[in-house]
């Protein structure tokens, strides 16, 4: 339904993304990369805020730039930094955004009510948003993105700034909204997507690294991830993924092409893949 074809984005001489080609069908897509890898640039192009320097983005075979408002009509977007009018109530703000989404008052009113209930903000629907917590604002953000019941829902770092409880609630909410639509969720927090994403897109060095299911990604490291005690000297080359505390003391989680003596491989998870792929690039 949505395809990105050989898209490159440059800001002057700076190359932000190069030759990205992707296909999206209904389901949840996790866009996983460290900060600065070009996630937001890609999403901004998908939302028509930025125009590709090269290549094109097609919705059902037609360039989204040519579709214009017709394309934006099926789009719901929660940006990384969700701005709002401090003196508005969620109801006022959603009513305004509904108008911008081409909805008339009669259609908008019940939809706003329904979404406020869904995001558990009904009891503060008439309170000014300047008093809202980060989690509440993100919920207003998801409600506005869902106003027009979009076929394409794009969420850029939706859990940034949320506490763990809110993050779980948010994840469940996204999952419940993911039926019969494309959901693209950008994050650098692995746990946000590992349980809900059907496919995960990895960007590296401003290029597409891969687009695979979580299982396929984990299989990339099958038989190569080990946990060894921190005080154990290893003779073979390895890549450190992280360290954590076990009952027996501090353990290192490593990727090693050949098993260290006396150790069996452990099941790799998505975080291992992330750390393996991005190695020195930072991120979580």
């Amino acid at each position: 339904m949505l395809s990105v074809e050989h898209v490159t984005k440059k800001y002057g001489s700076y190359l932000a993304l190069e030759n990205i080609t992707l296909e999206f069908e209904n389901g949840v897509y996790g866009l996983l990369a460290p900060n600065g890898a070009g996630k937001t640039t890609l999403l901004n192009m998908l939302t028509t805020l930025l125009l590709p320097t090269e290549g094109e983005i097609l919705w059902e075979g037609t360039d989204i730039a040519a579709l214009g408002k017709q394309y934006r009509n099926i789009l719901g977007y929660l940006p990384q930094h969700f701005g709002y009018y401090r003196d508005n109530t969620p109801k006022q703000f959603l009513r305004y955004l509904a108008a911008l989404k081409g909805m008339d008052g009669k259609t908008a009113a019940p939809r706003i009510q329904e979404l406020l209930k869904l995001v558990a903000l009904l009891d503060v629907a008439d309170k000014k948003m300047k008093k809202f917590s980060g989690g509440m604002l993100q919920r207003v953000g998801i409600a506005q993105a869902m106003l027009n019941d979009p076929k394409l829902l794009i969420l850029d770092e939706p859990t940034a700034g949320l506490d763990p409880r809110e993050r779980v609630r948010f994840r469940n909410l996204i999952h419940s909204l993911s039926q019969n639509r494309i959901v693209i969720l950008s994050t650098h927090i692995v746990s946000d997507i590992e349980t809900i994403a059907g496919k995960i897109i990895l960007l590296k060095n401003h290029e597409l690294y891969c687009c695979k299911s979580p299982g396929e990604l984990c299989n990339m490291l099958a038989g190569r991830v080990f946990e060894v005690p921190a005080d154990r000297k290893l003779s073979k080359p390895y890549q450190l993924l992280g360290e954590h505390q076990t009952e027996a003391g501090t353990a290192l989680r490593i990727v090693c092409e050949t098993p260290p003596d006396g150790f069996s491989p452990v099941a790799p998870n998505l975080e291992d893949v992330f750390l393996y792929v991005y190695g020195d690039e930072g991120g979580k």
Partner: protein
Amino acid sequence: MTLYIVKCELKKIASLPMLWIFFSLCLILNVGIIEGYRYSNVDDSFISYVKETAAITGTELGGEFSERLAGLKDSEEKRRLYEETYEVKNIYEDLKAVDLGQAYISVYALPDRWAALMRNKYRCLQPMVDELARSNAGFSLYAAGETKNLHDLLFSILFRTVTGEACVLAALCMIFLYGYEYQNKTEAVIYASYTGRNIQHGKLAAGLLFGCLSYSLIAGITLLIYLGVFDYSWIWSSNVSSIFNYVEEITGIKPFLTWIPFPLWEYLLAMLGLGLVLTLIFGLIGAVIGRLCKNSYLGAVLFFLLALAMMTAPYFLAEKDLWSGYFISQFLPVCLWLSSSVWLTDMGIISLIPFHETIGLFGNVIIWGILTAVSSRHFSGKDVLL
């Protein structure tokens, strides 16, 4: 673009506390001007006397007027009015408009090319002078010897102040509105919506509507206060080209020569209409600046710098004897505002054509309208960098 969106954009402006502070300060200033000028320049008792006398003598000077005035009870005011109105001449009968033009040509040493245009303008004015002579416009009583004071207060000082206030307000509010999404970090959500970048059309409509409203409010309230202080009920039909109304310039004193005969009320309405057009032009200037400059504060600074450049351009150009630049610069919106006290008149050295202000204002609407359209179009196909 729905009316609801325009209404929401208007609400954004109305929610700005600075707007109401500025608005209140404008009204306080205007009241201060009226009362200050009245206290220092206007003889209220004489105006009251002229009003009462006009009810008996009529408002057209001449033999009958003088006879009736002579029959009234003696007083200081009567003596003054009698001196001012006794055996007055129809100044327009012998007036050669070309001579007025020649005075500017001589004093400013205009080069031949511009001198020819200046002569031509005053040649065009001659039929109007003849019409003023034929219709005895000069014999209109207006407010007799206090006419100049009243006219200057209303049209030279108050009108220019009110128009200036509304223009600044219109431009700044437009800049504020265009920068509103950037200030609130709502650009991404709004520009990715169905309406998208077309929201700017709603902002433009709301900004221009707000310009009209603010101008109407400031001008309306100020005029009401002014008319509460000075009773104009008896002079609305006076001709603004009365002998008591004149213009003082470096070339000397000349009559208030309009391009068509204007009773006072018609002149006021025409001026208010032109003032509204000027306010809209400043709204469009604000739209262009707002489109180019996302940050409203930076936009406001840019606006004042632009206004300052427009204001000083004619002086600089005249100083350098760049006459073509000088005459073109007189069409700049700020220069049109500065010359508002002589709108609809010959405008002296400022202008080379009849109805300079009308042509200038409508020309500016077209130019700034085109610039607004071009900047909007450019924005529609441009990256929104967040």
